[in-house]
């Protein structure tokens, strides 16, 4: 057998082997998701009104956890248990809330939009709630109103048509606000200094009936 014939025989085999290896081992990795939501629950309970501080403490439980578009449950191990999910896909079933679902849960709201009262949602309850960021921006739902940004205080929120974040601590030294928010897949959920207050794309949003 000549070298040329050997090479002509070897190369198709090499290509075939590479293709098979990539298909067998690579395809499942590409489609891999943690299904974090498979471990979530549906636990909740109705409550009397709570304080803003309790709401902020609740929100803090999600800091350093993940972000999942359309998601709603997280643990408290300070890391995203489903990192790198493709953004904008609720079927990846990863850890964490999205921005509006996070606000819904941290504001102890009820899924029934005419009902303004309070409901504790387990951190691991996989619930998003009925509101989008734009709904909060325009005060949709009985618990929610709009408020002038200049009058906002902690546990109020700044909402645009595509994003919402709650005030964690207002007015830093550089006059930013520290916002607690479910920001993006790469960002996760956490607290960051932001300038939403002075950005006209954002409106002030408030939950009513804190004690």
């Amino acid at each position: 057998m000549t070298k040329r014939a050997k090479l002509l025989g070897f190369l198709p085999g090499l290509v075939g082997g590479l293709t098979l290896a990539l298909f067998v081992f690579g395809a499942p990795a590409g489609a891999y998701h943690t299904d974090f939501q498979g471990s979530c629950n549906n636990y909740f309970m109705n409550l009397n009104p709570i304080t803003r501080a309790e709401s902020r403490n609740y929100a803090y439980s999600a800091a350093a956890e993940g972000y999942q578009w359309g998601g709603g449950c997280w643990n408290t191990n300070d890391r995203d248990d489903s990192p790198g999910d493709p953004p904008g896909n609720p079927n990846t079933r990863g850890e964490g809330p999205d921005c509006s679902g996070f606000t819904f849960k941290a504001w102890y709201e009820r899924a029934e939009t005419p009902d303004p009262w309070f409901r504790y949602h387990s951190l691991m309850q996989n619930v998003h709630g009925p509101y989008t960021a734009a709904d909060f921006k325009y005060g949709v739902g009985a618990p929610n109103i709009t408020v002038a940004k200049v009058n906002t205080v902690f546990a109020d929120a700044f909402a645009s048509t595509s994003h919402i974040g709650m005030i964690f601590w207002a007015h830093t030294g550089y006059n930013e606000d520290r916002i607690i928010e479910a920001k993006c897949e790469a960002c996760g959920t956490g607290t960051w200094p932001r300038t939403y207050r002075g950005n006209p794309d954002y409106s002030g949003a408030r939950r009513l009936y804190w004690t």
Partner: protein
Amino acid sequence: MTRSWRWPLAGFVVGSLVGATLLTVNIVGAFVGEPAEVVVGQVDGGFDGEILHTPPLLVPRGQPVELVYEVVCARSADDPGTACSPKGSVHVRGVGEQAFADVQLADDGYGRLSATIGPDHTIGAGFDYYVDIEDGRGGSQSLPPGGHDVPHHAWTVATETTVALGEHVFGHTRAPDEIVERAEWGTGDGELGLSGGQDEARIGPSAFDIGPDGSAVVLDQVNQRLAVYPLGGAPRQLPIPFDGGEGDVAVGGDGTIYVLDDGGSTTPMPIVRSYDAGGRQIAGTPIAEPVADMIRVGPEGPVVHSYPSELWFPTGNAKPPLSPARQSELARPERAVEGGLGVVVHASSGEARLALVRGEDVVHSWLLKSSTDLGEVQLAEPYGDGLLVVVRLWTETQAEFHVLRMSPSRLEASFSVDRAEWAESAAVSRFRLHGDALYQLRSDPSGIELAAFAIGGTR
């Protein structure tokens, strides 16, 4: 088996092994990442939460000042109920004093703790202070974490130059003198990345800086790369690791590029990585505190502004970087700049105090007063014998940035610029001063650009 199948079979086996090996290396590499730095945790006394506080930094001499704290407590269980009941004391000493005096924090019943520091501590050059908080469930914490060894500091201001801005008239912005660079959104060569979707923030390049040779460096973190625009040369793209969603960038006098990565949900601490001009990583170190928003390069190297202390933490010149513990020991309330000076900023909705300080002395202080609400201070840099400041002015429906060139005696010049913030960038990294030009990172639906404004006056 006939001889004709030997070589195809050998190729198949080799190909399978190579493919499997490549995948394994790639997957393992993705999880292992760069060599880990040792994170030295703060001594937190079992405290699981965060103390929130905005240092007053610049206070009128001889006037009382209220120190306000709030405490956020992590939930100890996944059920409703009061998380904690914090209480504590502030420890205060005047400049030149050795011992701290204790002042009990008053509780307003809604989690707000406060203490009034009397004129006896503000009649001198300033005072140091720190707080000890107990959370009522066995944990305790100091802020700053270094306690009496690295306390907060407030300078007292005896005289200051007042700049009254009055009611701002919107719609009279100055056009840039030059568009230095422009790029479209995308992932291809020459494009800059944009992320976002429904119920997700729209994020573009986080930040930029101008190097000593005039080249621009844009942090294109969405595409995990730096975009470098050499003065008069062809743009280059340098791949970098980036864990979080946003960050900041600063270029040192030797051309070293420092990238602040907020870490996102990948790591609990922000990270600073340094790169040479070719994009090769030199070193990396975590920051001492869990949230950071700015990196700047001072006379002694890069410094990072971090929370909850709101101090500036030096991270060291490239290699070896400073450990988090060492950063905490060297943290300062002022940002060090050339000439042994420091820049101090404290702003609120109605007024902003800015000062150049040297050690415990205020060299000069300015008080900006505005009838239109002030937003964040985007930039405060020494300029001539004064200060160049960029601050946001806003109403519920409008916003612009206002540029002020201030000498020690007065406001020398000012103009407004369009906010041009269609895509989000890092909170206070939209502007940089280089020489006598102010640069702005601007975005709209079609793309992003670096604009330059000549400042004038004596640099």
